Every structure is written in C-alpha cells, then in structure tokens.
C-alpha cells in the first residue's frame, strides 16, 4: 500500500522520525555556502576595521553628555539661527515638493508602458533611473559647485530627487490600473486629455496624494542634511552646533526635526485615510 503512491512513501519516510523545522534555504549546498561565506566575510570585515578603543572609551563620556543634552535642549541661545535655518528648510521642502510633483506627473505618465509609446517610455525611464541612482547629497555637491551656495541648489536637488521617486511609483501604479474604466472613457469618444483626466487620473489619484505626502516628509528629512554641503537649510546650523560641541543646541534642532517629521507623518496618515 505504501509503495503505491509517492506521497505516501514520503509520509512513511517521515513517520517515526522526530519533526524538524524546515530550513529557510531548502538546498543544503546553498545554505552551507552562504553560511560559511558569511562567517569568512565577518572575520575579514572585523579584522580590517581599525578601532581606536581608547578614543571610543574617551568618547563615551561625551556621548553621555549628548544623551543628557536631550533632557535639557537649548532652544533659546541660538534661537535666531535655528529659526532661520528651519524656515529655509521648510521653504525648500515645500517649493521642491511642488515643482518635483508637477514634473513627475508627466514623466510618470510617460514611464507607464500601457500609456506611452516606446520611445517616450525609454526616455522617461532613463530620467527616472538617473534620478534614482544619484543620491541627494552628491547632486547637492555638484549643484552647489554650479549654482553657488544657497537654497536654490537645495531646491533643485530635492526637486530632482522627487522626480525619480514619484515618477517611478506613479508609473507602476498606472501600469497596474484597471484597463476597463479607461477603455470605457475612450469608447465614449474622449480625447487623449479627457481619457487621462477621467479614465486614468481618478484611479491613481489616492495613491498619488499619499505618495506626495510621503515624499514631502522625505524631502524635509533630506533638507536637514543639504546644509552640510552648503545647499541651504538647517544642516549648516546643526553642523556648527556639533563642531562647537554645543550639544544642547544640537539636541534642540534634532528634537524639532523629529517633531516636524512626526507631525508630517500624522498629517499624511490623516490625508491618506480621507482620500482612500
């Protein structure tokens, strides 16, 4: 009876043996290769990292001071600098998000295979790939070299980064939309604009709004570091505070950033809940 069916034989083999958890990686050779490779890599990595334990030990005290600074953040001493930097960060964030979203909508449409013809698709996907591959801070360095110091470089950086992020996700959303609705609009004799406006846009709008809010949040977080390379925003103030070991001011800035990010996240949650 047991020999009749392969599944039964498998069951018979297992009977009488203790059950063991199946492995995450089923193939033994792959599992062992990965495991041994990882171990070798870890040893090599640890051996090549130079660590000055004495310096680390000395630094623990400063680290503790910084933790303490979070309990007594100093918003007052550098209030003017913090306010100016924060306002510049927020302004950059808002302007760059608006421009970035406005540009990424046509590019997103162009990068969706079910809407755009092949040449347009290739160009738009190329733009998306370039924008995603270059990090904000590197773009910022180049743009500061080209446009000079100030928030304009930061504004361009954030807009550029927004395009890659939003266009890609928007294009994916358009590609996975329900074709039936769009076709129904087209069958009623709609022009291309009307087709996009009434057939495609209502389907992707909730997600577009959600993604835009998310990107606004990311842009604000990124704007906090652009100042490190001279592209405007709170980063310059923060850098100065660290350089001068003014931990209480640095803590104050970090707390403001965290609070604003939390606020934005809460707001985007509310807005996403409403539109979906």
């Amino acid at each position: 009876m047991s020999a009749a069916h392969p599944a039964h034989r498998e069951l018979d083999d297992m009977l009488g043996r203790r059950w063991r958890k199946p492995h995450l990686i089923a193939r033994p050779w792959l599992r062992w290769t990965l495991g041994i490779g990882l171990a070798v890599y870890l040893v090599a990595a640890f051996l090549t990292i130079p660590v000055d334990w004495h310096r680390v030990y000395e630094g623990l005290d400063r680290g503790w001071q910084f933790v303490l600074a979070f309990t007594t953040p100093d918003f007052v001493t550098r209030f003017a600098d913090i306010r100016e930097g924060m306002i510049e960060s927020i302004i950059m964030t808002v302007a760059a998000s608006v421009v970035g979203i406005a540009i990424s909508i046509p590019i997103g449409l162009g990068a969706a295979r079910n809407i755009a013809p092949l040449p347009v698709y290739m160009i738009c996907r190329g733009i998306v790939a370039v924008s995603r591959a270059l990090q904000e801070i590197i773009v910022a360095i180049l743009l500061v070299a080209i446009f000079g110091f100030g928030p304009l470089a930061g504004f361009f950086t954030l807009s550029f980064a927004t395009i890659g992020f939003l266009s890609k996700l928007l294009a994916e959303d358009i590609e996975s939309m329900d074709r039936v609705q769009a076709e129904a609009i087209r069958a009623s004799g709609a022009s291309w604009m009307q087709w996009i406006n009434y057939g495609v846009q209502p389907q992707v709008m909730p997600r577009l709004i959600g993604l835009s809010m998310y990107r606004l949040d990311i842009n604000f977080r990124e704007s906090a570091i652009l100042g490190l390379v001279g592209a405007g925003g709170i980063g310059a103030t923060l850098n100065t505070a660290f350089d001068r070991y003014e931990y209480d001011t640095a803590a104050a800035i970090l707390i403001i950033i965290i609070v604003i990010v939390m606020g934005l996240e809460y707001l985007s949650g509310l807005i996403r809940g409403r539109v979906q």
Partner: protein
Amino acid sequence: MPVIESNGGQIWRRRDRTQTLLRWGMWLIGTAVFLYCWKQISDATTWFFVWDAPRIANDIWTRATPPKWEYITQLGRPIWDTLNIATLGTMISLCIAVPVAFLAARNTTPSRFIIRPLALLIIVSTRSINSLIWALLLIAIIGPGVLAGVVAIAIRSIGFCAKLLYEAIEEIDESQVEAVTATGASRWQVMAYGIVPQILPAFAGIAVFRWDINIRESTVLGLVGAGGIGLQLQSSLNVLAWPQVSLILLVILLAVVISEWVSAKVRGAII
C-alpha cells in the same frame, strides 16, 4: 449628481458649485504658498551665479572628463570599507530592530501603554534623522573612522527595519499562533514556531532592501569623515581634482546599480 442647466437642458458636471469653489480656493492658497516660498529662495540666491551656471557646468565637465582611470588602484580599500559599513551596519541594526519590532507590534507587545509607545518613539526618532547627521554626531563622540560609519548606519536603519517588521508581525495569521498555543507551547515556543516562520520571508526581504539602501548611504558617509569611499570624494573635491571626482562618482554609481540588482534578485528569490 451635479448638473448645470443651460438652454433648458441638463449637462453633467463632475462637481457641484460649492465643491468647485472650495477646490479653487485650495488651489489659490497652494499657489500663494508656493510663490511665497519661491520668492524666499529667489531672494537668497545670487542670480549672477545662476546665469553664469551653464559656463561653470561646462567648465567642470571639461575638467572632469576623462576620468583619471589609474586612480582606481587607490579605491580598493575605500570600497571594501564602504561595503563593511553597509553590511555590518545592517546586521547590527537588525539585531536591535527585531526586539524593538516585537515590542512595537500590537499582538506581541508585553504592554500596550508603556512599552509600545516607547518602541514607537525609538522607531520614529531613529528614522527621522538622516544617517549623515548620525555620523556627524558619532564622529564628535567616538572620533572619525569606519566605526562611526557602521554605528551611524546601524542606528539609522533600526527605525526603518523595525517599522516594516512590526507591520509584518501585525499582519500574521493568528490561527497558526493559536494552533501552536493549543499544543501547550510556552511563550517562547509560540514565538519560534508560530510567529517567526510567518515573518521570516518578510524579514529577509527587509534585510536585503535595507542593505541596498545602506550601500547608497555609506558611499557618502565619508563626506563628514565616517570612512568609506566618501572620504576619497571629499579629499578630491577639496583639492578640486575633478578627474578623480568623476571616477569616484562612476564607482559609486556602479556600486548602487550592483547593490540594487543584487537586492532585486534576492528579493525575487525569496518572494
């Protein structure tokens, strides 16, 4: 259904009058805010430099090409450091993110009113601060070097990994957990046989995804002195060695593309 009367006939409209007015008002406010922001940026900009930008860009381009290929021999060690920062940072952050995620998930947290908000606070605060800022801070504390980079990446990744992981934990199938509990398993056995197998694929996916992001981030950590290829970038920028800069940027671009490819492949194999 909103309609408009014209010549005795009814024509369909998408929105009625109040909605239209409301929308119009919102657009007006939005445009005003944007224009104000643009005005501020514009005031803070030296426009002479901007009009001069094409010439400068062209100038930099001619200086930066062709890249100084032989400089690649000096980039081996920095690339290795960058890889270590990303990989070790990801591993350390995962070790911390797993317990935090279990404490933050509604169905596994030991206490909803004390520990869960604390875990969520850890997640939000580590997530909202960029790794470059963490690196700045750690350099002030433990001195410049690869270690500061590893720790910066580790701290920054905790929030990201823990957030995705606790969402995965909250979405598990409770019936499996109940089945394991019904066999008389202890709390830890329920964890190991009821919950962990369900989130393991998500965990692996998150780990690889974050590793990919960390490769990107660790390439620039050197700009503030935290080791890796960014150090070389910074020193080349400081001496205006544009051919070296362009080579480093190419290497970074290649690293980003490779890591993205690896992560896509691994995630494809898992899911």
